[in-house]
């Protein structure tokens, strides 16, 4: 695939993702806005893929070693922290922990 064809594809999915995102998120009730924030927080931790690719480059100099390593550390903190904190929060949302009187 030529570079330009790929770019057009990428822009296409970018635009579709915007509309999809708005569609899905507008259905989230205000009740869950904090878990929504921390959940999307965890999702942008996907940048870990980029950090891994950088640190995993063959024939890299010390500059890339250091930058890549720090990026992997930051991104993994983002991913793990984001999902764990969201899980802790969502666990708490209950209808009623005892039967109605």
């Amino acid at each position, binding site marked *: 695939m030529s570079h330009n064809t790929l*770019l057009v594809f*990428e822009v296409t*999915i*970018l635009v579709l*993702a*915007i509309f*999809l*995102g708005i569609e*899905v*998120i507008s259905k989230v*009730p*205000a*009740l*869950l*806005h904090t*878990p*929504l*924030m*921390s*959940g*999307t*927080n965890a*999702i*942008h*931790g*996907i*940048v*870990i*893929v*980029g*950090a*891994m*690719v950088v*640190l*995993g*480059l*063959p024939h890299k100099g010390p500059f890339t*070693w250091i930058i890549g*390593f720090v*990026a*992997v*550390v*930051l991104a*993994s*903190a*983002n*991913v*793990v*922290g*984001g999902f764990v*904190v969201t*899980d*802790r*929060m*969502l666990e*708490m*949302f*209950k*209808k009623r922990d005892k039967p109605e*009187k």
Partner: protein
Amino acid sequence: MGYNLTNLLYLVTIVTFILALRFLSSPAHARRGNQIGAAGMLVAIAVTFARSGLTSYWVIALGMLIGGGFGAFAARRVKMTAMPQMVALFNGVGGGAAALVSLAELHRILPEPGTPKVDIGLAIVLSALIGSISFAGSMIAFAKLQELIGGRPITYAGQQFVNAALFLGCAAAGIALVAGVQHEWLLWALVGGAAIFGILFVLPIGGADMPVVISLLNAFTGLAAAATGFELESNVLIVSGMLVGASGSLLTMMMGRAMNRSITNVLFGAFGKVTAEAAAVAAGDGGNVRSATPEDVAVMLAYAHKVVFVPGYGLAVAQAQHDVRQLADLLESKGVEVSYAIHPVAGRMPGHMNVLLAEANVPYTQLKEMDEANPEFSRTDVAVVVGANDVVNPDARSNKGSPIYGMPILNVDNAQAVVVLKRSMNPGFAGIDNPLFYNPKTVMLFGDAKESIVKLIQAVKTA
């Protein structure tokens, strides 16, 4: 693993993320959704490990262990009241990672002859710029929320000018890079400048405006991740980043609407600046404030049919959520109907109060959003305001001179009686006078919110 298989598996990750967001539409499935999303993230990480051409496995694993260990530790230990700063912190590190990836990418492609392709250059510049602003801005938001630095807006003469100059400088460095000026220091200058911009841009924003800022920084990190996707030609980064970008932007707009203020006003208005003038006005037209004892209030509550609690940031500060829940249980056992009215911008992040009350095991069916809560006040006997101020200020409805005029509020003054739990008569965070306190229907219960509630529980038991 080959290119096609890798990308097909990344598609699985994309689908799990969409499902995670989709499941958030109801608290009943939301947790399952989050677990599906986490599983999808694991798939993406495993696939990346298996990608052809990847080296240094052990170093990557070590980095993950350090970062993941820190993330898990912090996420397990954090108190629910400290959630806004935790979200800010995780948001910041994500932005920082995106900025670093762009630095490394430029470093990798620069030795090649000729200029980097314009679109790749643009993506590198954007993710460096946005990621860096998000990182530094989130750290300042974290420091403010953690009270490492003062929460009040910090302003100085020429602030807007300095910010604008800094931003234009960064933009110029970015344009030069995209146009093909091959100097790596330009990107460093851009990253550094953007970080300083991020700091200066969040510093003047007051604590009460944090819900907007945190949502916006969340959107920024998402956009930075999406830009990183263009650098690395990775669909999973583009789609996931953009989903977050859309979510953050939408939340930012919702929060702005809930305060009836434009986003520009929140970001560049330094809201707390009105303090001096508003306080001066407040001193002028005081009026009588009725103070009550816990026993008085307990009688009102115990003989009511319907009580609505209105929580605000003060509830989080006093960590009174469990005590409020106990009081509510006690009232329910006496046959009182109890619910909670929650303003969209109560607290320091979107949905902050809901999380605190959920932590105290308040069933979410009792948590009412503003539109649902407001019509109920006219048939409410007692509205109990716990640490909220601006979101119940009737001036927002009627006083054109008030800085919060036009902001939708919870109409607690429609209730038969209002009890306000408040530390003292000092004006709230934004320093705006609140005529609700002088309303003849209102009684004030002064003191720490937690202590007051504990006293109320005792008094209701004997009432």
